[in-house]
């Protein structure tokens, strides 16, 4: 719950920042929280306003330049006091409510201080505390605290003027640190950065404090030890070998397809952007813990299964209620959009073959109308992105997939759940629940790790069409994704010596082609999106309008119903 709480507060903080900045296409490099974890509304607005009025990337770079100094936390808090004054003055004319919000923040400061424990006070930096006290006392028109001449000068210096631009502000910040702390900021931190440098440094530095301003990483790493996979660079690629296949077999279990069929698939679908890759379809049967370093991963998978099962058990009531609500919503969707079976009626379409009944038998039911019964001739494939980026939400994703599968199963709609990830050049599709399985517990075997080559996984699912429950039915593929495909196997371009990394626009475009191909075969494709706002553009490029965004499990029911409604209405 703590993690969930943090995530929800972090999202709220982001929203306040984005709103103040008037821009939702960036990942805030800072967020502000109170000690109890609630977002600090005023300071998050200030962060957003820094983005609005100044070059936040350069300012972030400045903050990053002293992270190795032991006083960096103090520097952060001093400089944010300065920034607060600067952007407050800039924004006040356009947003008069700032004055009131600033006063409320000042009052909040005193409330926080009154509630602070002795231990917390001991951890508090006194120079910072004095400056904060001076700032908020001034805002409320109170007497300033007793300050030494140096502290008074510091207080005045931290009132960065509202007419400063980014250069002027960086200069002021730099002078402040030099004057009061004899700290010389590296020249590069004040001058214009080289392109791309900042992003890298922000992502690299992920640290978190219990209160006040928190530096964030990519926005995906709000979990300790979060891992982001990175590309090693071009030119090192070696096609998958037999050893890689042995490893995949040992870790994920034997292939459900005969060797010859896997070979045909490799030839048929590992083409174009997915050339040099291989596919592996498994049900996780017979993994081999004795194989080299497979034992560790197998143990971790087992542990994750236990965590997933525990999460579902701990939230049994919520899962049951979600299944109920989703299946009833889905029933409405099916009833609305699937073909209604006709039933006799007293008004509607005239049924000529029954007309004689009116004069002869005095039966007025010679019309037909759409009856309440519908045919449910659909087959659902739920495809889960099981890459490393999903690592922080494995329990939630497996619970969501379980809810979806149980809901469809409750309506007698055959559903198959599979997870995909790419490792060592192999895109592994792991079938967690087959359409014929009544038991949905296999879904708790969901485990995130590796890359995600979405384009190949989507091509692969099209070929898994030999399930007996699929005969004569409309196939629907629902993908739970973060719309951020990437893989270590680069894209080989015919006629080009150089290869391109499989990520960014290249990977998105390849996935878009795969989705288009699936649709051209009459398969409906929709996406349930769990990712960052920065990938929304990619999401729409790949799936068009056939997607919904889910921010938390409670939105799953409505989101899936909306998505199914969209898909069914296009039939």
């Amino acid at each position, binding site marked *: 719950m703590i993690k969930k709480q943090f995530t*929800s507060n972090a999202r*709220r903080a982001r*929203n*306040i920042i*984005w*709103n*103040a900045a*008037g821009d*939702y296409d960036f990942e805030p490099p800072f967020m502000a929280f109170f000690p109890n974890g609630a977002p600090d*509304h005023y300071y998050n*607005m200030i962060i957003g306003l820094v983005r609005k009025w100044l070059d936040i990337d350069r300012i972030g770079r400045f903050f990053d330049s002293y992270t190795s100094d032991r006083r960096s936390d103090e520097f952060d808090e001093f400089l944010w006091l300065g920034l607060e004054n600067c952007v407050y003055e800039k924004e006040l004319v356009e*947003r*008069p*409510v700032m004055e*009131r*919000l600033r006063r409320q923040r000042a009052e909040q400061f005193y409330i926080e201080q009154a509630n602070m424990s002795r231990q917390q006070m001991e951890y508090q930096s006194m120079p910072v505390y004095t400056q904060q006290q001076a700032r908020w006392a001034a805002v409320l028109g109170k007497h300033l605290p007793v300050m030494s001449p140096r502290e008074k000068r510091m207080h005045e210096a931290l009132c960065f003027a509202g007419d400063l631009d980014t250069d002027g502000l960086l200069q002021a910040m730099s002078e402040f640190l030099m004057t009061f702390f004899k700290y010389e900021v590296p020249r590069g931190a004040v001058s214009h950065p080289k392109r791309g440098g900042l992003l890298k440094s922000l992502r690299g530095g992920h640290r978190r404090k219990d209160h006040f301003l928190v530096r964030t990483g990519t926005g995906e790493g709000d979990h300790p030890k979060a891992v982001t996979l990175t590309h090693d660079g071009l030119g090192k690629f070696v096609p998958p070998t037999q050893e890689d296949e042995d490893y995949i077999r040992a870790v994920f279990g034997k292939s459900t397809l005969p060797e010859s069929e896997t070979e045909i698939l490799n030839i048929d679908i590992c083409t174009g952007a997915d050339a040099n890759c291989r596919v592996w379809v498994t049900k996780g049967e017979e993994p081999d813990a004795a194989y080299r370093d497979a034992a560790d991963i197998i143990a971790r998978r087992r542990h994750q299964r236990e965590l997933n099962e525990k999460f579902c058990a701990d939230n049994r009531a919520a899962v049951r209620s979600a299944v109920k609500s989703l299946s009833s919503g889905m029933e409405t969707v099916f009833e*609305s*959009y699937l073909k209604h079976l006709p039933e006799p009626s*007293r*008004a*509607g*379409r*005239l049924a000529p073959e029954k007309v004689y009944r*009116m*004069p002869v038998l005095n039966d*007025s039911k010679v*019309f037909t109308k*759409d009856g309440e019964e519908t045919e449910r001739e659909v087959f659902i494939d739920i495809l889960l992105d099981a890459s490393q980026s999903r690592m922080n939400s494995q329990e939630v994703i497996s619970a969501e997939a379980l809810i979806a599968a149980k809901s469809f199963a409750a309506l007698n709609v055959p559903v198959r759940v599979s997870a995909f990830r790419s490792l060592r050049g192999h895109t592994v599709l792991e079938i967690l629940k087959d359409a014929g399985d009544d038991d949905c517990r296999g879904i708790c075997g969901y485990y995130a790790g590796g890359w995600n080559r979405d384009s190949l996984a989507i091509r692969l699912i099209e070929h898994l069409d030999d399930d007996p429950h699929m005969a004569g039915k409309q196939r629907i593929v629902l993908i739970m994704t973060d719309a951020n495909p990437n893989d270590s196997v680069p894209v080989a371009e015919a006629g080009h010596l150089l290869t391109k990394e499989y990520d960014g626009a290249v990977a998105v475009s390849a996935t878009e082609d795969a989705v288009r191909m699936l649709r051209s075969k009459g398969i409906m494709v929709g996406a349930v999106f769990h990712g960052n*706002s920065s990938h*929304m553009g990619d999401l729409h490029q790949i799936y*068009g*309008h*056939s997607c*919904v*965004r889910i*921010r*938390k499990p*409670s*939105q799953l029911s409505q989101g899936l119903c*909306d998505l199914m409604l*969209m898909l069914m*209405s*296009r039939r």
Partner: protein
Amino acid sequence: MEGLFDFLREEGVEPRLLEGVKAFREAHPVADEYKNRIPVPEYFYYGNETWELALAALLAGKNLLLAGPKATGKNVLAENLAALFGCPTWDVSFHVNADAASLIGTDTYNGNEVVFRPGPVWMCAKVGGFGILDEINMAKNEALAVLHAALDFRRSIDVPGYDRIELQDGTRFIATMNYGYAGTRELNEALTSRFAVLNMPLIKDEDLVKLIARRYPDIDMKICGQLAKLYKELEKKAESAEISDSALDLRGLLDAIALMDQGILSGAALEMCIVNKTFDDYERKLIRDVIAARIPDDLTRDAVFGK
């Protein structure tokens, strides 16, 4: 309807188009029994470019499809157009089970005789009114196929076994369709090609200020500006899919001002008319944050209306 004509003149709508509308009204008088179907708009649509395009299309005899996300004023414009042209309207709200019978008419029986009961589209065609086809993309495409002949050059409706009628000269159809992040569905090509499609722009900041000020002439203009900005910020949040568009409700904003006019404090009024439009607790928090960043929650009637 001089008020609407005056408003459009003030907005700078091309006078030649307005003359065209007057000529249309004179050429298509409305029978007394249908006069109660001519709408009297409560709000005027702002955006003279959109007005000009819509007027030109209707004067040229085309049907109009107003497409755009929620709260772009599709229905307000449709109602304003019918009022300006002085035409009776038949509103049809489409839903997933709308079928040909609910549009054209249905078979029923009278004693031992099967008879035809006319539907709204049939009536509209016969009287020469404006058919407002609301949320047309909610219906299944096969249900809409019956409209093809009515909407294209044939301008007729043929009901097998009954009659074929020609559309009155003044008959026009204005359809609306919503699309946004969540998307509803796309209209099929055959139907879309029978409409002039007008992509409804989001209301501009200055037009929103004018809209509020016209409805509430006493409002303090600074507060009016902040309320307009608040709406635009919610619009941006919905566009970014951080909140659903439930709270993005222009009517809700105007209703909130109406409540403030009745003496309710700003916080409570906005809570009731905007925040509570969404039933997701977390989403409500996000919306409250946006409101708090613009409007103090204790503004009194005197503060809002400058009295």
